[in-house]
């Protein structure tokens, strides 16, 4: 059986397109969350930063291909992202 026809290969082929659509949709949700009156400032900030973390991590791992990097590189980039988003959330909730 040709590997190009296997479900795994097909899923791998379409993965970037699915990922792109997820990232686009999450961006729309971020904007709506920011402008929604139903959410408190704290809740909105948490949701916005959670979405930002998820989007940035997906981009980092699968578009930048850090998922294929040696462990030390992956730890560095994941730590950078976690530190940045964690810091922003802490300051936002404290403010």
């Amino acid at each position: 059986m040709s590997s190009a026809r296997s479900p795994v290969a097909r899923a791998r082929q379409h993965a970037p397109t699915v990922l792109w659509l997820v990232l686009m949709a999450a961006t729309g949700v971020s904007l709506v969350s920011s402008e929604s009156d139903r959410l408190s400032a704290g809740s909105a900030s948490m949701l916005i930063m959670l979405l930002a973390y998820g989007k940035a991590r997906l981009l980092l791992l699968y578009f930048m291909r850090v998922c294929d990097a040696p462990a030390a590189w992956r730890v560095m980039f994941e730590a950078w992202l976690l530190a940045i988003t964690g810091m922003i959330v802490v300051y936002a909730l404290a403010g």
Partner: protein
Amino acid sequence: MSEPHDAPGNALPHRRALPGDEGLWYFIFADLTLFALLFGSFCHRRALDTGAFEANRAQLYPLFATINTLLLLTSSYCMVMAVRARAIGNRRRAAAATAAAAALGVAFMISKVIEYAREIAAGHLPTSSDFFTYYYVITGIHLMHLAGGVVVLAVIAMKLAAPAAAVREPTLLESGASFWHMVDLLWLVIFPLLYLLR
């Protein structure tokens, strides 16, 4: 370090490596660290005067920033497709996808210039307040990275489109793509930090 391991159906043994030139990744991490300092400085200053920062933030145009986010995400997607096309030997498709990514970068720049013009027309100058100082510095430095990336992508697209195989190995394309994704990654943090957080 630049195996075409992400080609559809590629059965090459998997090897842990970063795409493109390894030296570039040191630069990317150093750049991300510098931006982290900027973000930290912004957060600290904002915490000291949340009311004024929030009042200024509310005067920005989040729709511009949202459109710019969609442009950059689509541009990054184009670069993923360019690397994939190159990996299976389709140089023309790789050139077209890289050129599309650069064009979307230009669209981002045009949108940003319009946004700046509207802010300046509204009297929001870099010296107007601490918030606007940070706004112009952070988005300005990001825009310079983006402009540099557009030039790099345009050069890569031309090399890929050249009839003679000017780009025989994928390191240049993968390096350009990695830098471009970094520009996108930074924007994914700048977007909520400046425009969305209440």
